[in-house]
């Protein structure tokens, strides 16, 4: 926690009264918006957890597509105990797998197939691959809260209708350094908007591109 600078903006005070949205802004070590980074809020006491569990609107289902022989999106988030749909939009078969200890899975998914649905029972950071197309790489973050979002173009995650209470703010991206991955921040809502500045540069994303880029390759060697 101490490794991350947390800046509280007093100018945002008006926006953070109860019933107003809370905005988390994530920026890179150079101060640029950290688009694509996940920010999520974990209830930090029993009362807050009860309020969060009673939230009426469940987040939409998470869909992970296989499109143009890539995982799309590269990074997806879901709440534990919720369905995750894998949808193959390519006209070839994929063999999706994860080797994570308690989230290990693999399945083949043909073209035009009905989406494959999986459900994860506990929080985890899941790295995925395709056993036919080795260049494909994707990640699924499973969190124990419905309060999550992926930073927009301007690096912001906005939480609407947030119940008052005690939270722990966590940020995640597979390309984050270890220092940033171990970050979490206590947050008492209502609160001022928060800006999180990552301490380490994000590594470059994998290109997810095959060396041979012809559309009609034979995948048997």
């Amino acid at each position, binding site marked *: 926690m101490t490794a991350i600078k947390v800046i509280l903006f007093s100018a945002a005070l008006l926006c953070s009264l109860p019933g107003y949205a809370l905005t988390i802004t994530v920026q890179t070590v150079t101060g640029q918006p950290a688009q694509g980074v996940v920010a999520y809020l974990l209830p930090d006491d029993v009362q807050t957890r009860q309020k969060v569990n009673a939230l009426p609107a469940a987040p939409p289902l998470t869909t992970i597509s296989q499109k143009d022989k890539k995982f799309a999106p590269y990074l997806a988030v879901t709440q534990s105990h919720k369905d995750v749909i894998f949808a193959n939009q390519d006209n*070839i078969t994929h063999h999706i797998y994860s080797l994570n200890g308690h989230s290990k899975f*693999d399945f083949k998914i043909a073209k035009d197939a009905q989406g494959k649905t999986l459900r994860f029972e506990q929080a985890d950071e899941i790295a995925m*691959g395709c056993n036919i197309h080795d260049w494909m790489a994707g990640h699924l973050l499973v969190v124990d809260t419905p309060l999550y979002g992926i930073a927009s173009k301007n690096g912001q995650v906005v939480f609407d209708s947030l119940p008052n209470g005690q939270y722990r703010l966590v940020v995640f991206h597979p390309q984050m350094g270890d220092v940033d991955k171990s970050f979490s921040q206590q947050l008492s809502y209502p609160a001022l908007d928060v800006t999180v500045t990552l301490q380490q540069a994000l590594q470059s994303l994998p290109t997810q*591109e095959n*060396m041979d880029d*012809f559309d009609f*390759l*034979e995948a*048997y*060697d």
Partner: protein
Amino acid sequence: MNKKKYNKTTLLTLLSCLSLNASINSSYAVEQSVTGLIDLRYSYVDGIDSHLDGHYGKFRFDPHSNLAVGHAAINYQVEFDNPLSIHAIAHAFVDEFDSEIGFEQAFIKYQDLPNPSGHRFSARAGIMYPRISLENNATGWTSPYTLSFSTLNSWIGEEVRYTGLELNWDKLGKFDNKKYDIGLSASFYKHNDTVGTLLSWRGWTQSSRQTLWHERVEIPPVAARFGNWLRHQAPNTDPFIELDHRYGYDINARFSMANKLKVNLGYYDNNADTLVFKRGQYTWDTKFTYAGINTKLGKSTRLISQFLIGDTLMTSPRGRKVVENDYQSGFVLLTHRRGKHQYTTRLEEFSVTDNDNMPLDNNNEYGKAWTLSYQYRLNYNWFLQGEYNWLQSNRPARVYDNEPVDLIERQWQLAAKYYW
């Protein structure tokens, strides 16, 4: 090419294995898929009669104009809900010489998941190509770059294929944050006992006609065949026959770096017993080393280069050396894609060196070739392609067919290709 009777026992055994496997696994989810290619081709050749017609012409088609079905290929795949899959590739050709349909490859593949350290085991069993060509990675073992394959890979397509078991180990770098993968393979096989015959008696060619698994290929009129010491040789060679019941092997190593570079190295040895002679077919002891590189020079330009060097030996059943040749072939291919347009050029050099002193059978050859190809992608499935091939060679054996020793042959091809 001449037809021969199917090696029915082996083919039926393979097919029954495939169907048995399918029925055993009927309780699993089974996904079938079919991909394919139709290639309709017009060609004009300025040269001599083709090697496919038993002569010394370097190209697939005879002189003057031709219309042909360059390729009609079907790749049928069955994926089981386990590490197994079945792959059967059938290929048909219709040209001025014959209309032929048959198996190109058929194998069962087992591919386990990598372990958490990125080590992965996989295997293939059946009729398959060794991992040599860096050109022929499209449906039906065709090339995304040119209509005629390099002389090196034309030979692989004609004579080098086997029935056997391939064991693969791969190490995927992404599991420990490395940007490169490495792999090793060892193959053990039969049914490749006459490999070297065509390379010796006919030389290198620039073709796109693969030998189907049941086919024989006509041999040119080598003088020693006619009433002389080669009179027992059948007029055709059977590239995929089993004569000596010994296993050959092929070792392959590969290295790839993100989507920038692939390096491929290997050694092939059919480990043949040259004392065996059956049904007009000599057993040829053939060994070669191969190397290749595929690298991206910027986003849309790619360089592929391969080199192969080896030797072959054929003896009489008593062990007298009668054909002993060294050979080599190499090419550099440069291709550039801009939107729907793809421009490719390829330079090649090849040779065969005759090391025996047998008369009426001069196998020496030296040549160079240049290819220029343009491909236009009409839509997702349709491609139009125009190609020019130029090939200069010196081959003294052409006098056996009343053709000049020094020769320049040229070929123009236009193709409409539909991949799905």
